[in-house]
């Protein structure tokens, strides 16, 4: 049952092959039995899940025609999405005791569709990391290689899907946090256009870059998820008023005649040759299906990592100021005065990577440095966006590797934050431009998955899912299972 996709589970529920309670029990049992190996969940909400499942079963039996495709299907939420009544830690000691009284809009939308929530998945602390090593709850292990990282920051969601502990999960992407772990764990993940999915109730890392999106094994499943995750939300001023199409409608469309841009900058120095090989093979498959490949240039690509590591920490330094020990979250023992409470609560509550980024961000915004760092980074951001806007005058989509290397071992980049930051070199630019991006499995190197990245034009998620689905119809990388997983 756990090898079924979200679409197949939905069909099975519809046909009465099994009940939501049975499906839910199956996945809960699997989590209980196996997650000790992966550490992909921070919180498992067994009782709630079973209650939701039995409610979904009643809804289906009462009126099978009007329920959504997701009714009774289990998923997991990244622990960055606020869930009313369920601890939402954001992977941090700071919020280890935090139980929000409200749901994130994404959580609310999916609940309205009738999903069953198995639990909350592990993540890098406050989504800051590319390896899931910064989580207060310990690292997540890559199901393909227990010595390797699952990627981050949505490493828990990615590993849980890859290990078949949940058919799908929500995630967030600020600089690659959906696409990079999807690539490293051999699953499919989509970061929508900035503004497509509401950020209400999604704990902020870098507000102008953060975007929620789905992770699953297939593009079809992502379409099912996005149909319900995407919405215009009056509670998020940056959410888009554009109507949400049915992302499942165009999945099977012919892609012949489509022009796919291949940026030369994504195939240069630093790209692992084995990754390059796998990505080229995938591009050849798309060509075989009639797509035209066109070499393009995104000349400011090399500036995306430095610009990102100014803008994201700058925003984070302000976003994380609210965690001061006074209203919720961690407070140090016996503070002697206000300053002591602030300093110790924050020193003890935040991990090293979070502190590093707060310091970098505060520095970049300081008097005398603002122009040299923040303003300059914002100028670069505009140039990067211009690169894409001009590229999309000639191409329908852009394709390349998701990240330069397959999964690396724990601790491999622990002493070198810059080496870690460079793992996001191909994903960060899309966040800076606000474009949608996705990653889908396109190969295995020494049993380590490789991801193909698609970058679409604004609000062109439907066409990206179409290309990904067509590719998955012709390949089986997405249905490969990590060794040892039955």
């Amino acid at each position: 049952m756990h090898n079924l996709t979200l679409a197949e589970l939905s069909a099975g529920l519809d046909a009465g092959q099994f009940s939501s309670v049975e499906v839910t029990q199956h996945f809960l049992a699997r989590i209980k039995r196996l997650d000790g190996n992966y550490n992909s969940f921070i919180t498992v909400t067994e009782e709630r899940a079973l209650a939701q499942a039995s409610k979904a079963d009643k809804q289906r039996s009462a009126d099978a025609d009007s329920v959504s495709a997701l009714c009774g299907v289990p998923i997991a939420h990244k622990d960055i999405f606020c869930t009313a009544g369920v601890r939402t830690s954001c992977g941090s000691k700071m919020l280890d005791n935090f139980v929000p009284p409200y749901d994130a809009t994404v959580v609310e939308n999916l609940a309205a569709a009738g999903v069953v929530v198995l639990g909350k998945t592990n993540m890098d602390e406050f989504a800051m990391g590319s390896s899931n090593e910064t989580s207060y709850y310990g690292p997540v292990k890559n199901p393909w290689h227990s010595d390797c990282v699952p990627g981050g920051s949505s490493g828990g969601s990615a590993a849980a899907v890859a290990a078949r502990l949940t058919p799908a999960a929500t995630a967030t992407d600020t600089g690659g946090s959906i696409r990079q772990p999807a690539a490293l764990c051999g699953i499919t993940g989509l970061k929508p256009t900035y503004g497509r999915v509401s950020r209400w109730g999604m704990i902020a890392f870098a507000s102008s870059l953060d975007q929620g999106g789905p992770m699953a094994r297939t593009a079809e499943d992502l379409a099912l998820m996005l149909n319900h995750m995407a919405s215009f939300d009056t509670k998020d001023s940056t959410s888009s008023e554009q109507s949400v199409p049915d992302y499942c409608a165009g999945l099977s469309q012919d892609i012949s005649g489509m022009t796919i841009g291949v940026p030369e900058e994504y195939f240069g120095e630093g790209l692992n040759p084995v990754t390059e090989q796998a990505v080229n093979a995938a591009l050849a498959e798309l060509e075989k299906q009639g797509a035209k490949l066109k070499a393009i240039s995104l000349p400011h690509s090399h500036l995306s990592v430095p610009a990102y590591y100014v803008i994201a920490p700058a925003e984070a330094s302000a976003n994380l100021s609210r965690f001061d020990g006074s209203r919720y979250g961690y407070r140090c023992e016996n503070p002697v005065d206000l300053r002591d409470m602030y300093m110790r609560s924050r020193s003890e509550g935040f991990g090293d990577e979070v502190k590093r980024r707060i310091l970098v961000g505060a520095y970049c915004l300081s008097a005398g440095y603002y122009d040299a760092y923040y303003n300059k980074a914002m100028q670069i951001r505009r140039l990067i966006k211009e690169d894409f806007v001009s590229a999309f005058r000639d191409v329908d989509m852009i394709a390349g590797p998701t990240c330069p290397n397959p999964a690396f071992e724990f601790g491999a980049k622990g002493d070198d934050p810059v080496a870690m930051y460079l793992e996001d070199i191909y994903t960060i630019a899309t966040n800076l431009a606000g474009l949608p991006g996705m990653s889908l499995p396109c190969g295995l190197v020494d049993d380590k998955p490789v991801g193909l990245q698609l970058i679409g034009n604004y609000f062109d998620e439907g066409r990206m899912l179409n290309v990904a689905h067509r590719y998955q119809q012709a390949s089986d990388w997405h249905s490969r299972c990590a060794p040892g997983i039955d």
Partner: protein
Amino acid sequence: MTWETVIGLEVHTQLATKTKIFSGASTAFGAEPNTQACAIDLAMPGTLPVLNAEAVRMAVMFGVAIDAEIGLISAFERKNYFYPDLPKGYQTTQLEKPIVLEGKVDIQLDDGRTKTVRIHHAHLEEDAGKSLHEDFHGMSGIDLNRAGTPLIEIVSEPDMSSPEEAVAFAKKLHALVVSIGICDGEMAQGSMRFDVNVSVRKKGEALGTRTETKNLNSFRFMERAIEQEVERQIDLLEDGGSVVQETRLYDGDTHTARSMRSKEEANDYRYFPCPDLLPVEIDQAYVDAVRASLPELPEARRARFVESYGLSAYDAGVLSDEPATATYFEAVAGQCGDAKLAANWVMGELAARLNSEDQLIQHCPVSAEQLAALIARIVDKTISNKMAREVFSAMWAGEGEPDTIIEARGLKQVSDSGAIEGMVDEVIANSSKQVENYRQADESKRPKMLGYFVGQIMKASKGQANPQQVNEVLLQKLNALL
């Protein structure tokens, strides 16, 4: 040595919206602590601000009322600092692109001249909560009801040169924002708060070093704080010292100010554009519509009071500045039919009583209808002015309608000419000596001698005789004896 004072003001004005600038929580004053702070005001994780359109409209309204250019694209920044009454750890405010650009406000000086104070800009921002340092046994209590209340901060150019001018400007702004309905004007509740920038220089010299005194929430405090600061700076300079650029905090209890922080200790607020809010874009049609919706401004009202009520420019000014006073006056004048008498009462007896009891006219225990009814009794000669003051006091004390009080206290004035003639005759008959003196006196001295007779007659009538009638009859009868 003559010193020149240079003053600029920053005025925090709470906007009278029903809900907060970025959340749906109520802005009503006086609720139990922390009962009007929602998840957004508490800066709970994952919450996001949504701009209140009404706050934008009110800010634009202020802009058009001072003839300012309106920023058609304005934007919010985050101003970062840690303090417990600032839940997010930053204040959302406007820096680079404020909504109201340069404008001007005319003030009337005591010598009758008009002076123009330029407004540098006014920007939208959120208020902070309140820290309560009493009653918590060495700890501090935080009330976040005020957190997120919309403000416009109005920043003037340093165009004022005396405490009186600064107060005149502040009062003018107060009258303006209350008149156009964007602020309730309740100073005691902190609806309008002033920061004053003060420097001194010798005539003709360059600007001196300025200090900023914060936290002034009354015109009186502001005046005193400026006076003290000017004196302090002059003393420093005359003793050969220098003024340090610093922020000072005024204590309304002790009427003293102390240094809060120097320029070197000033916070680096690390402003940057707020990524949670899109720039505010409005168009000229919107601005024009707001301009068309402006109610009567104090200037126009004053002209109308002179024109239609025949008031002096001074009286019209006093009565038109505060909308509540103007409304009260117009109600009284309309109902009693004697605008001048109404003006005298509102500016005289009523203002004096409000002042001595430290009461706002909005909360006046004597309604405009009651005062009008009282004045009508003066006009129809039922009671004298003196009696009216007694009735007014009784109304203030809550004894009811004027007619009821007049009745209950037997205050009716005797205007029956027969009765008055009788009393006059009797007093004249019983005062032969005084009558004789009157007859012998030089004509110029006679009017002064009338007082005795009037006193006797009023005494005989127990104060109820119409004094005007008494005067007339008395004069007539005495002169007949000459």
